[in-house]
């Protein structure tokens, strides 16, 4: 259309149009569940043996599934949820210690942690610290006490692991302790939104 090129001032300001575009949904659920078709066509991997690192990744992904299912539920309410079949962490797995990168352990001696985990932990801690500073003292105390409880729990498990290296129960408890701490930090962060109202509401509580 020639009139497009020759159009004078835009009738709708770009800022409003951009906002409208930005609020269009990025997610559009397919009309039918496509997973069944996809699953039927996934070629099996040539090497079935899972490496030591692979086992930990699988174990960690299984442990993470619960939190991710929460994300899935929020993103796609119609998604099917469920722990992947055959994914129970059993004590029959070979002993693996979470040694994936060299980094000072926040939880105590004898444990080195995956760099990605450490980074996520660092990010979360920083986010949470600035958020907590704005909350009423009682809430802040509760959160800090409980995070300390979790760190102490992980340290206890670590100490036990030093006495019984490779103990499957302890490794399982330790893995879950790490995941739990991240989960709790992000839950607290989500529940204490930097919503202006929430902040101001808490300010009111502090002054009483």
């Amino acid at each position, binding site marked *: 259309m020639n009139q*497009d090129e020759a*159009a004078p001032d*835009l*009738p*709708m300001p*770009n800022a*409003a*149009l*951009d906002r*409208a*575009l*930005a*609020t*269009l*949904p*990025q*997610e*559009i*659920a*397919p*009309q039918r569940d*496509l*997973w069944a*078709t*996809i*699953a039927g*066509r*996934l*070629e099996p*991997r040539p*090497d*079935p043996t899972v*490496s030591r*690192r*692979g086992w930990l*990744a*699988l174990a*960690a*992904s299984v442990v*993470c599934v619960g939190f*991710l299912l929460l*994300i*899935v539920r929020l993103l*796609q309410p119609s*998604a099917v949820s469920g722990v*992947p*079949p055959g*994914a129970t962490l059993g004590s029959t797995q070979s002993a693996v210690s979470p040694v994936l990168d060299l980094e000072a352990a926040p939880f105590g001696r004898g444990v080195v942690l995956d760099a*990605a*985990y450490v*980074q*996520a932990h660092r*990010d*979360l801690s920083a*986010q949470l610290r600035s*958020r907590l500073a704005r909350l009423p003292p009682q809430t802040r105390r509760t959160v800090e006490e409980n995070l300390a409880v979790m760190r102490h729990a992980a340290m206890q498990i670590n100490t036990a692991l030093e006495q019984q290296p490779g103990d499957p129960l302890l490794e399982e408890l330790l893995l879950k302790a790490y995941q739990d701490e*991240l989960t709790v930090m*992000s839950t607290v962060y*989500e529940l204490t939104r*930097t919503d202006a109202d929430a902040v101001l509401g808490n300010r009111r509580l502090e002054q009483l």
Partner: protein
Amino acid sequence: MTGTSDDDLQRARQRLEEQRLVEAAAGGSTAAFEVLYRLHAGRVHGLCRRMTQHRETAEDCTQDTFLQAWRALPGFQNRSAFGTWLHTIAVNTVLARRRRLAPHETQTQSLDEAASLIADSAAHDPAAARDLESAIATLPPGARDVLVLVAIYGYAHEEAARMLGIAVGTSKAQLHRARHLLATRLAYEGVSA
């Protein structure tokens, strides 16, 4: 779309969790891959849908994207975000299909298809979405591709250009053209500031 602290937090968590899942899926776990599918299918399908403006094609595109991702997963280096990597595959899938077909087939914009896209995305915000979606459906493919990637999915021009195989300058020009056309068409339909 703007990066709030909550988005940053969600992203940090997802980076870690996704890395675990990608490793497991690369090692052969279809269960881990299904979780990745559940996390990303909506956005991948949304992208395919908006670029192709055709329901069945978008479903094929979505399936092909995940199948290709499964094959290529062992080589995924984590340099880019997993979602971006999936979208790159999706865009390639759409463009490859376009190149294969005769030009007139891809330019057909049936009213039924536009209407169904509007219906599928309208749950989000019916009033705004209906007008905007129908206007986007009428855009020529080149302009629409850039508009979808940059203005809806938030990619920078450099990334969108790389995904579409065009120059950055072309991407910016196409976006300008898309917004110009949208503004004109929406005004024509009675929407004003």
